[in-house]
């Protein structure tokens, strides 16, 4: 495929686009198809509609879809069966009959003790996987006692300043029996080492640890904007993590390639799909550059998508994502193992779709979004609580969100059949349309010089910001309706009680750091930090063992990140808009 592309001087992406367009132009041949054409023609004469409809991504949507819209669609090569290439219908043979999706609630606030209690509450109530949310200082690699952390400790998630905090978060939770996801990016290698050290101390070998660190720095530059070092430095540390985890933590997914934040930053579904997969291809190329074979590490990559409320478009997005990933991994990167081709993903219902106004309505929104994710075959799911446009969720609202998933799983009967919307004329047409539109973006990104160049040039960020502004204007004009916000409004003040986080967490964490710093063996610490600095400076070295040693010597998150700041420098984002 690659060779063909070079000979014709056409990119891989433009060939894929042509392939789709050519197939769609095939003329109907059988008598039945001709009959359908006649039927449709006469129906059209009676049904004249001039109003234009679009999906939330701006894809023109017709009033009815028929077999005519599936011209060129091949059941075996476009859809296949669950657990079989190209995985459009799902990545496991038995899908939810074999195992339900993992119910993984994104949690974390205040002190490690606060969060330990919340995790235990959720596990006791039927949660099946853990997911940690960190506060802003942790995400940016500052300790709780840093000047920049003032007023921010424990506000948006749990504060972790040292390995001792990690131990407290997981106290009483057997790490060999749960899988843990950590939403951490710039300091991901350090948090991974803290988790590993916590497990080792509890006598659990690293080989038994299951879970995910997000580590997706590309989407940080694109959307979430929680970077610390320049891109090259972060990518080098990620390379080290891929290599280390491939060897020592075979059940750990060291990167979760995330579209969630791209979407929350304002992208539409097509942009989320395209930019996320483009990031994914960049990580594949990073692994190849590190000297790994594609089949050695591709199954360590996992994905994380948003699920917004345009129901069918979201379902089509997930199906298209699986199809594209499988196709590109096989045809462009030469993967041989099915495990390297299948796209496994976590889903979070859309935070941006939740409204501050009439917050109880958010339960309904989240339910619809969760339903779409399940119908599209997600591997794990977080459902937002209805109060999350106001604050971090209370125990009660988080429980309702978990119950939402449990009702879908246990009461609706939906999990009994894999990809039950597969074969719908509309869903299949839309899946193909999303696929084509994603390929167009890949072509564009390649013409800029790849995703990293596109990010540095600000192209991706501007695409997203423009979409966000356009959507806001549509809302202002009433073209996009949000119930309770621009239609069916009510006058309410503070209709709900929300979780309050005060300064106690900050005081406690600062005091804890003071005690820790007084107790440490300073020679071990200095040696570890010195070794770390040398390793950071030697780009051919793998930095993970040195980070692990520093973590075990009780170096704080901020101290380790400061070594990185000294060696790599800090990245200043573009101040443009």
């Amino acid at each position: 495929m690659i060779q063909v592309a070079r000979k014709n001087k056409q990119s891989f992406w433009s060939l894929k686009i042509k392939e789709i367009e050519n197939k769609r132009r095939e003329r109907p041949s059988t008598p039945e198809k001709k009959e359908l054409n006649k039927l449709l023609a006469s129906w059209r004469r009676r049904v004249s509609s001039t109003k234009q409809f679009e999906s939330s991504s701006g894809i023109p949507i017709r009033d009815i879809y028929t077999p005519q819209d599936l011209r060129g669609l091949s059941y075996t090569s476009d859809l296949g069966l669950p657990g079989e290439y190209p995985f459009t219908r799902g990545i496991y043979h038995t899908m939810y009959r074999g195992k339900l999706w993992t119910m993984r609630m994104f949690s974390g606030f205040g002190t490690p003790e606060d969060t330990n209690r919340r995790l235990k509450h959720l596990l006791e109530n039927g949660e099946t996987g853990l997911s940690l949310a960190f506060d802003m200082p942790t995400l940016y690699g500052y300790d709780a006692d840093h000047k920049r952390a003032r007023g921010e400790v424990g506000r948006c998630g749990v504060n972790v300043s040292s390995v001792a905090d990690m131990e407290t978060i997981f106290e009483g939770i057997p790490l060999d029996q749960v899988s843990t996801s950590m939403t951490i990016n710039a300091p991901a290698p350090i948090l991974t080492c803290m988790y590993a050290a916590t497990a080792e101390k509890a006598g659990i070998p690293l080989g038994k640890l299951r879970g995910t660190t997000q580590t997706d720095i590309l989407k940080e530059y694109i959307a979430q904007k929680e970077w610390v070092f320049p891109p090259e430095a972060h990518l080098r540390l990620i390379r080290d993590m891929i290599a280390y985890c491939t060897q020592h933590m075979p059940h750990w997914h060291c990167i979760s390639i995330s579209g969630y934040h791209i979407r929350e930053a304002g992208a539409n579904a097509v942009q989320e799909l395209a930019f996320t997969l483009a990031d994914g291809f960049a990580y594949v190329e990073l692994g190849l550059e590190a000297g790994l074979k594609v089949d050695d590490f591709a199954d360590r990559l996992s994905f994380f998508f948003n699920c917004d409320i345009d129901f069918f478009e979201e379902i089509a997005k997930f199906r298209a994502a699986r199809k594209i990933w499988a196709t590109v991994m096989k045809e462009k990167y030469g993967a041989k193992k099915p495990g390297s081709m299948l796209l496994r993903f976590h889903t979070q219902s859309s935070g941006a779709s939740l409204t501050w106004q009439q917050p109880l309505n958010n339960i309904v929104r989240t339910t619809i979004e969760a339903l779409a994710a399940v119908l599209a075959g997600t591997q794990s799911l977080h459902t937002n609580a209805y109060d999350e446009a106001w604050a971090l969720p209370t125990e009660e609202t988080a429980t309702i969100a978990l119950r939402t998933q449990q009702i879908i799983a246990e009461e609706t009967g939906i999990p009994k059949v894999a990809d039950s919307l597969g074969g719908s004329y509309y869903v299949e047409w839309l899946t193909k349309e999303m696929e084509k539109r994603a390929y167009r973006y890949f072509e564009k990104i390649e013409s800029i010089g790849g995703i990293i160049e596109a990010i540095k040039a600000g192209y991706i960020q501007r695409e997203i910001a423009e979409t966000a502004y356009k959507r806001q204007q549509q809302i202002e004009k009433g073209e996009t309706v949000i119930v309770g916000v621009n239609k069916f409004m009510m006058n309410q003040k503070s209709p709900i009680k929300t979780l309050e986080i005060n300064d106690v967490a900050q005081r406690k964490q600062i005091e804890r750091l003071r005690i820790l710093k007084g107790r440490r063996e300073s020679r071990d610490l200095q040696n570890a930090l010195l070794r770390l600095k040398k390793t950071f400076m030697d780009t051919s070295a793998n930095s993970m063992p040195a980070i692990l040693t520093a973590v075990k010597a009780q170096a704080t998150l901020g101290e380790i990140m400061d070594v990185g700041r000294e060696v790599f420098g800090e990245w200043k984002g573009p101040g443009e808009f």
Partner: protein
Amino acid sequence: MLVERSSASGRDLGNSKVSILAARISVQKTGSKSRRIRILVAKPGLDGHDRGALVLCRAFRDAGMEVIYSGLLVTPEQVARIAIEEDVDVVALSLLNGAHMTAFPAVAKALRKMGGGDILMVGGGIIPEQDKPLLEKERITGNFGPGTPLKTIISHIVRKVEEKRRGKR
């Protein structure tokens, strides 16, 4: 794309945006008396949530204001310095990370210290009802929550600037 970036001065009004047209006319009226409103959109703290701030930058620009964006990860002191150096009428503060009660008053304090105590401040983000009076005491007005129409924010700013300019004459 380049036009989008360079139009931060507010000169590029070719793209008429119907929904905020009224506010724009109002801004131009204000502008004709003295000058266009100069506004600094700032995120003082560790907060990457910039969707709202970026939407506002575009909306203020399309409403005829001269917009300066602080970029991310600036300290309250840096925000105050930019505001004074750029001689802005208004600082629009945005935080969605729960740190507004520390960061917003810190900007107010830094402005006072650096001699910019007369610069107007408006706030926005996830701000609980009970925090609003405390922010108002620091002269930070508006304190708009999610879902607030752009029109509401723009007319609040225009009104505040007009009041201040009238007071000066």
